[in-house]
């Protein structure tokens, strides 16, 4: 078995009384594309924020390349973060900088490369995502898909070993979303990166994933190869895959609440 590049052990996260992640265990092996599926509010983005080391959990550990991101020194955390690229849901490009400067930022800040070399590298990164001619544009002049691709170029600027995508297809039309899927597969093929993709788009998940993990109510309810996952008999997985809605209205609770609001206790005269 390959060694895990990301290992999450017994991760527990609470915001006040609200439990967001419950004793979560997950391993992502080097070079695989792991898709993290789950409905809204299932804890996917929270998990990502803990893997990146943006938040500290109440309990448990997150090991990235063997380093505990919540308990390591600042120097080790910097080294871990250099090995990771993150493409945020909103792209998170710097609005005051051109696309070129956005992609050049990590190269200027984290390396001693000369400016002409940085310019060449930026062009290569942008050309790889199909934005070679958008260097001088500001982010507000880009479409949703172009913003995501520019964010990919920035996230891959210093050649990370792990690339994390938070909802790469969110807000994109089906064609552009499919292009993003192909870009993800291309990145793995070209650079042999480990990719962790958070999504709730089933078509996208089954197109790109090697393995799929599913979060439900802060717990992992399934982690499997994509074909095995597709054949899962777990009722919660099936509900998600078959797109069966939860009942919107609990009629008994609704009537009870209405009676309380109206001052009726339930006893009829």
């Amino acid at each position: 078995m390959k060694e895990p590049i990301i290992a999450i052990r017994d991760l527990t996260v609470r915001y006040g009384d609200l439990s967001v992640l419950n004793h979560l265990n997950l391993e992502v092996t080097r070079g695989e594309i792991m898709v993290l599926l789950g409905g809204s509010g299932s804890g996917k983005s929270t998990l990502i924020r803990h893997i990146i080391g943006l938040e500290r959990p109440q309990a448990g550990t997150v090991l990235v390349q063997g380093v505990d991101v919540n308990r390591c020194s600042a120097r080790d955390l910097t080294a871990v973060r250099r090995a990771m690229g993150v493409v945020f849901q909103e792209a998170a490009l710097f609005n005051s900088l051109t696309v070129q400067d956005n992609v050049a930022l990590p190269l200027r800040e984290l390396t001693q490369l000369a400016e002409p070399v940085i310019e060449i590298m930026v062009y290569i990164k942008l050309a790889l995502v199909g934005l070679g001619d958008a260097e001088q544009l500001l982010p507000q002049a880009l479409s949703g898909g172009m913003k995501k691709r520019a964010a990919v170029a920035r996230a891959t600027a210093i050649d990370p070993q792990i690339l994390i995508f938070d909802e790469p297809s969110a807000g994109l039309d089906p064609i552009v979303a499919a292009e993003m899927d192909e870009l993800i597969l291309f990145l793995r093929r070209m650079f042999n990166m480990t990719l962790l993709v958070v999504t709730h788009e089933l078509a996208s998940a089954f197109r790109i994933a090697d393995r799929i993990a599913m979060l439900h109510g802060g717990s992992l309810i399934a982690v499997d190869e994509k074909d095995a996952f597709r054949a899962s008999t777990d009722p919660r997985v099936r509900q998600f895959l078959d797109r069966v809605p939860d009942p919107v209205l609990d009629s008994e609770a609704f009537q009870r609440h209405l009676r309380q609001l109206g001052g009726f206790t339930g006893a009829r005269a």
Partner: protein
Amino acid sequence: MSLLDRVGRQAIHGLTDVGELSLQFWTGLRATSSVLPIVGKRGHWQAAIRQMLQIGVNALPMVAVVNACAGFIFAMQSGSELRRFGATRFVIDIVAIGFTRELGPLLTAIVVSGRSGSAFSAEIGTMVVTSEIAALKTMAIDPIKMVLAPKYVAAMIMVPCLTIMSSVFGIMAGGVFMYLNANMTFPVYWQAVADTILLRDVLAGLVKSVAFATVIVHVGCLEGFNVRGGPEAVGHSTTSAVVKSTFLVILTDLFFTAVFYITRGL
């Protein structure tokens, strides 16, 4: 919630603010070297120059108008009292010393707090909301070095410059008052001002202005970094930045004035 509970919460909240500000001040101070030309990171010095334009050059018209008005008001108020004793000439001493030591730095700080403190908070708060700060952290780039340090260096340079300009405008307004009321010509007025002001008065004003710049930048940036939620939270942080920084500027002023008074008898 009981009164004791509420007081306790407020005390904890206040102490947390002080702790966060102290930590940020220390990391901000260490990060200033990254902004300096030649030894610093490329691009940071240019960012500081852009901030200098925003904080200093663009604020100059407002600082000029506010201080000229305040100078004239100050001269009229003191002149109306001193005239009764035939001591109108002392308006020069009051305006010159008042602006150099006190009003110049204070009014400049209030203008900069309203213009730039709120802008820092809104800019950083928006960066938090749009995940730009999170993106910086994930790229192993320290937001304090990248975002705060250029603003801090720019403010440390420009707020003292603005303070000198504001004192000049305030004192000039006093000169206009003296010309209109006592037919005192400007060369005579400036000579009287030069005889009144000591170097330590100027230095006292400049020390205060550096302290005010520190307060404004750190409070504005901290409010921005602490934004949680959406655009409404950015609005709250902007208001909070102006209110807190103005309050802290006045407290800092009190502290320095007391120190100067005790140590030098100013």
